[in-house]
């Protein structure tokens, strides 16, 4: 088993294409993503203003909005047309409109309205605008109420305006940041997908070699479990390092929440890696040559990240997709790791996910063993080497023969054409 592991490791290290997947991509890709989302939240969203009221109160509202971290007023427009034009040219992503009767309504003690228009190309603009303006309006509302209640003490006024107070606590992701939310999912998915791509590339190479007459790795052993176990051990060895870097070092490097405890993380990541490895081996059997893994498996990452439920909540998915999602290690991996890393969950809190990963490990192990045994049996028969090399030679010969025949046919067509041309030429000459 160790012998096979050694050989597979050598295969891995000597193959730059595989090394790119196993080492280079996990090394650089997370850095790129962290760089991309490093801002965490959107600040100072540019907005334009149409102030038809032009009163002290409306100006106060605008001044305070501008002072919030969420919004930045880039222009005071004369009319809606001008403001709309700025939004259309993507100079601003929001519009605050204060109607002319704003102050008179307030003074008469009725409810005044501020209209907010928001660009919906990104939900974060909406969020910034909503939270910025809500903050300002709550503050101003309280001030207005205070001035209206005369003859009471300050404390009484406060109680009167806000009989029950409330506070908001965002647990585990205190900045409500985009990075802390998406990066853990991307890291886990990255591990699974690079494994799938790398292992498929190795399998593709083996398939190409087998067509050229080389027997599969480890055909000399009696038991296919030895070979399968050896390969898995080799990948696990490589990914022990890769996973440590990706899951422990990268979040630390970018100051993201890291609440995991070592025993929990290890106890969870081991079944995740194992199930991903056997999953990768399993689907690598479909790959016929080195490069097709790009076309077959890369795009899957996009649906997989949504299947995990990190973005669109699992509770609201159609049942069919929910069931399908269970078959991918990434689904459980992302949910488990996000909670271990970001919410400090312990093993008992993620036991369902860990259990699912062990079950997947079992399923994919049995499945790959089954396929492997069939492939292995044909290479294990006496004289297999001879048969395979003969088959490869026959394939080569047929290819050469087909090419020869095609060339001969072409030559024949060309010659007839030439003869006809000559005849036509002579006939033309005779007429003249």
């Amino acid at each position, binding site marked *: 088993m160790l012998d096979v592991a050694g050989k597979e490791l050598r295969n891995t290290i000597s193959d730059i*294409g595989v090394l*790119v997947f196993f080492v280079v991509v996990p090394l650089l890709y997370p850095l790129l993503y962290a760089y991309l989302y490093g801002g965490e939240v959107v600040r100072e969203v540019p907005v334009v203003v149409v102030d038809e009221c032009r009163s002290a109160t409306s100006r106060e509202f605008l001044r305070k909005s501008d002072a919030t971290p969420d919004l930045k007023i880039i222009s005071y427009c004369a009319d809606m047309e001008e403001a709309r034009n700025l939004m259309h040219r993507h100079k601003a992503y929001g519009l605050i409109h204060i109607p002319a009767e704003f102050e008179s309504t307030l003074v008469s003690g*009725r409810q005044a309205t501020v209209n907010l228009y928001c660009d919906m190309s990104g939900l974060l603009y909406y969020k910034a605008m*909503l939270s910025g303006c809500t903050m300002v309006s709550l503050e101003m509302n309280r001030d207005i109420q205070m001035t209206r209640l005369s003859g009471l003490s300050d404390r009484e006024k406060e*109680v009167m305006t806000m009989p*029950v107070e409330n506070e908001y606590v965002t647990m585990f992701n205190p900045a409500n940041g985009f990075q802390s939310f998406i990066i853990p999912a991307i890291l886990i998915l990255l591990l699974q997908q690079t494994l799938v791509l790398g292992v498929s590339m190795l399998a593709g190479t083996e398939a190409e070699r087998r067509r050229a007459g080389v027997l599969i790795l480890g055909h000399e052993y009696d038991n296919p479990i030895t070979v399968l176990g050896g390969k898995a051990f080799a990948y696990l060895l490589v990914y022990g390092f890769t996973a440590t870097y990706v899951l422990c070092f990268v979040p630390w490097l970018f100051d993201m929440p890291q609440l995991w405890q070592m025993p929990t993380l290890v106890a969870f990541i081991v079944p995740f890696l194992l199930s991903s490895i056997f999953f990768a081996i399993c689907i690598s059997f479909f790959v016929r040559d080195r490069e097709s893994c790009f076309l077959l498996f890369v795009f899957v990452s996009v649906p997989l990240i949504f299947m995990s439920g990190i973005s669109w909540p699992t509770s609201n998915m159609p049942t069919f997709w929910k069931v399908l999602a269970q078959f991918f290690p990434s689904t459980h991996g992302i949910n488990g790791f996000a909670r271990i890393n970001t*919410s400090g969950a312990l093993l008992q809190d993620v036991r369902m996910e860990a259990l699912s990963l062990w079950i997947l490990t079992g399923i994919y192990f049995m499945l790959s063993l089954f396929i492997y045994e069939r492939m292995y049996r044909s290479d294990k028969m006496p004289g297999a080497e001879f048969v395979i090399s003969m088959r490869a030679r026959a394939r080569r010969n047929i290819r050469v023969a087909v090419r020869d025949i095609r060339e001969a046919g072409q030559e024949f067509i060309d010659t007839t054409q030439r003869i006809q041309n000559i005849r036509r030429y002579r006939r033309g000459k005779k007429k003249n």
Partner: protein
Amino acid sequence: MSGSKQGFWAIAIREVLRMKSRPLYGLSMIFAPLFCFLFFTTLMGEGLPQSLPAGVVDEDNTAVSRSILRNLDSYQQTEIIKQYANFSEAREALQKNEIYGFFYIPKGTQEMASSQQQPKISIYTNSTYLIPASLLYRDMKTMAVMASAAVGREVLYAKGANLDQAMGFLQPIQMDMRPLGNPWLNYNIYLTNTLLPAVLSLMILLVTCFSIHTELKDGTAREWMSMANDSVFKAVSAKLFPQTMVFTLMALIYLILLYGLLGFPHNNGFWPMFLAAELLIMASQGFAVFMVSAIPSLRWSLSLCTLWGVLSIPISGFSFPVMGMPPALQALSYMFPVRHYFLIYVDQALHGIPMVYSAWYYVALIVIASLPLIDIHMLRKAAYEYSYMP
């Protein structure tokens, strides 16, 4: 040489046969996009998530606290699935992902409210799951403010105010939020409009790169070039033509799915978006040819195209705005076809403004599509001299 074996159409027919001979092409050009189209539109079929599971810790257990809970449960997006005995039980449920958030009503809330001591109720959400947490927060915050207002309103009614006066006092300034183009805050509209073309663009990059390189790898490149009379431009355009047709069909399918069947906003009609999709296809092909010509190694150009295709999803700026990214990446975003497509979609489908405003994005797509003009001559050289190195 016979005429039938040469020229644009001969190469195009040859390409169709090549595509038919390997299931890989069918899988990546037809199955993969269709799967994604179906997946994303059905996954988020609800539009805006409904009945998100939330919890409650009611240590007060009085008439006031119960009325708050009853009101909260009546919100469409929130569903109280369980009451927890204490704070740590609720926190554990949060960590187990049973709920996305909970309300905490401490002991003595009613007592304090009636003796005018300003009690405090708290809202906790698990922001590891950002979207459900934000939605829950919106409901819970409104609920908390309403609960407070309800108490204040009763006092004002008792003093003889009518509803208008009471609201004028409780909330003098009111916000009227008008989300442009997507008033329902529909996630399906918001995400699929960018994700579907992005996946298509990814597949185009990969397939274009792969199909040109297999010519080099299998040693059929010379035959291919000679069929085009040694004109590399003709060879490439004829080869890619059948693929362009297949991808156009795919684009039509998703456009009809989004704007026809699902009725998503397309305020300027079908044609501006169709033009954008067609240019997106050509720009992706152009970019891939540019890469292949510049880097005559299958693995590296495929890797780069993969990187480009996958990165185009975050860098298009639909989830996290480009203006929040580092300046270097902001500049780089112009090199991604999907980024321009996204901007066109915002203008033409979502906002429905005159096409003049998006003219530059259309031009940018054309420019990316003509990038190969710079380096395509290098591909010709590679076709004659290349030998495959695994």
